[in-house]
């Protein structure tokens, strides 16, 4: 027995019920992914001006001309993608390393001030980013004079509190006995971390890597603030430029949007498990 009746004596009723549910869910799912479908379909249309566009939800034509148009629009189109890749990859790697180290210390090592420090980190997650944006901008641009550099794009997110929290939560569940026996075998703390804790935390590290990469790839606000030439912009900011410069050419705009979203779609479909797992790792236990 469960929430739904099994209709044990009457499989027909069960099939009908599940079919109705399936259709309802499918209809809503179609509405949900319609924008994405529409984006991809439209990007294969001819790059004609808006006035001449027929808004159609079925592909009338299949051409890569709009993608070519997008890349021809700016000599920096490829550079935007490269910048995004550089920034997202660096942020991902540094987060996995430093958040896992901090997570290990907060979950397994005893040191003075551990509790209060972790509490401060937790509380800081509640602070809206609007509070830090102005001082952070002043710090990076006016004090460090790093505007328009990779350092400015990367440094503020080198390790996030959320990832430390994620690592700590996961590593707390690793039994202490494993570490104790390693200690007796003569492992140093770093060896314990490197050889025992990290291999046991593979799943959460993968989740962390993927979600961090996604956040960094999709981030728009900070790169918008700290870049001021086209060659240092990321794809998200570049896409915005393109939109304002070319609001009349819709198919190439959709091509640009598709390009900016495509890497995440590919990652999602190949590593779906980690994406979906990541959602529940951070949430409270049900």
């Amino acid at each position, binding site marked *: *027995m*469960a*929430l739904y*009746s099994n209709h044990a004596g009457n499989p027909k009723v069960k099939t009908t*019920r599940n079919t109705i549910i*399936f259709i309802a*869910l499918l209809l809503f*799912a179609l509405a*949900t*992914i319609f*924008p*994405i479908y*529409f984006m991809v379909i439209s990007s294969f249309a001819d790059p004609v001006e808006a006035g001449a*566009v027929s*808004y159609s939800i079925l592909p009338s034509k299949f051409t890569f001309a709009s993608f070519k148009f997008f890349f021809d629009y700016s000599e920096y189109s490829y550079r935007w993608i490269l910048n995004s890749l550089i920034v997202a990859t660096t942020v991902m790697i540094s987060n996995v390393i*430093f958040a896992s*180290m901090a997570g*290990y*210390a*907060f979950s397994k*090592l*005893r040191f003075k001030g551990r509790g209060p420090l972790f509490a401060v980190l937790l509380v*800081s997650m509640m*602070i*809206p*980013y*609007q*509070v830090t944006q*102005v*001082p*952070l*901008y*002043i710090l990076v641009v006016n004090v460090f004079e790093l505007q328009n550099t990779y350092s400015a794009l990367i*440094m503020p997110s*080198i*390790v996030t*509190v959320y990832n430390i929290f994620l690592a700590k939560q996961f590593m707390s569940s690793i039994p202490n006995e494993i570490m104790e026996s390693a200690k007796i075998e003569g492992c140093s703390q770093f060896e314990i971390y490197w050889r025992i804790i990290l291999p046991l935390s593979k799943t959460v590290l993968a989740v962390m890597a993927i979600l961090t990469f996604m956040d960094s*790839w*999709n981030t*728009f*606000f900070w790169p918008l*603030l700290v870049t001021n030439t086209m060659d240092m912009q990321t794809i*998200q900011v570049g*896409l915005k430029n393109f*939109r304002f410069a070319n609001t009349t050419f819709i198919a190439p705009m*959709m091509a640009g*949007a*598709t390009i*900016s*979203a495509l890497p*995440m*779609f590919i*990652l*999602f479909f190949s590593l779906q498990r980690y*994406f979906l797992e990541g*959602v529940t790792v951070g*949430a*409270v*236990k*049900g």
Partner: protein
Amino acid sequence: MANIAGSIKRRRIKGEGAWGYAFIAVALVAFAMFTAYPVVSAFMISLQEYKPLGSTYVGLDNYTNSLKDALFWKAMGNTLLYTVLTVPVNLLLSMAIAILILPLRKKTQSFFKAVYYLPVVASGVALSVVWLWIFDPMEGGIFNQLIRFFGFSNQNWLGSSSTAMFSLVLMSWLSSHGTSIIIYLAGLLGIDDAYYEAAELDGANFFQKIRYIVIPALKPATLFLLVTGVIASFQVFQNAYLMTGGGPNNATTMVGLLIFNNAFTYFEFGKAAAQSLILAVIIAGISVIQFKYAGKDVEY
């Protein structure tokens, strides 16, 4: 003997402590530099008329001026309206979807999970570009075509102050429940069948089971999603910035956008900092209230 044992123990802990600090060093420096310092700095800036070369101390002027500013309250009102229209509806929708997914086969479940999660993965800028075109005000706009089919007339969705907010809300309704569906589904799968069995023995029907078992069991998840949803919604910036720019007539100016404009369009850093701290206090207050009233009988 006791002395030696004591000193050995102390040395071990001391060594562990040093390792502890070494392991958190980078995280701590990054946190101090990019979170703690900016928060303190925001407070200092909020008390000044900030100029790159020599600021003037103005006390609480930035706060009092903001609290007297009609646009600030308008933005607060817009943000509140947006929150009230999106957060509860999104929670309800995702709970309903999660419940509906439950009886289907594992493969079908995974299929729907993936489809509903897909918009979460897409970049916000890309989605806003697509939605701009969906809301195209011309007759050929997809959404206008759709509502004409149901007998409504053309609307200038994002360009008219009566429909702009609704357009942003609709966009949220259709693109942001992937995460909550998966959290709810995890909660649903964690409910012990024994509860349903007991309810069935008492003659409970499907809706009574939802009312007396499912909803209480999902309460921790709901509280989590409610609090994080409200916090996120109060910081909304990107959609308003990219889709409407806060217009028309400030109908979609959210607090996040107002603070951004004050800071990076008018370079009124002091005012922006003061408003951001007011926002922080409001968010903290709302979170506390939610925990107090909704969290009463939630155990973690």
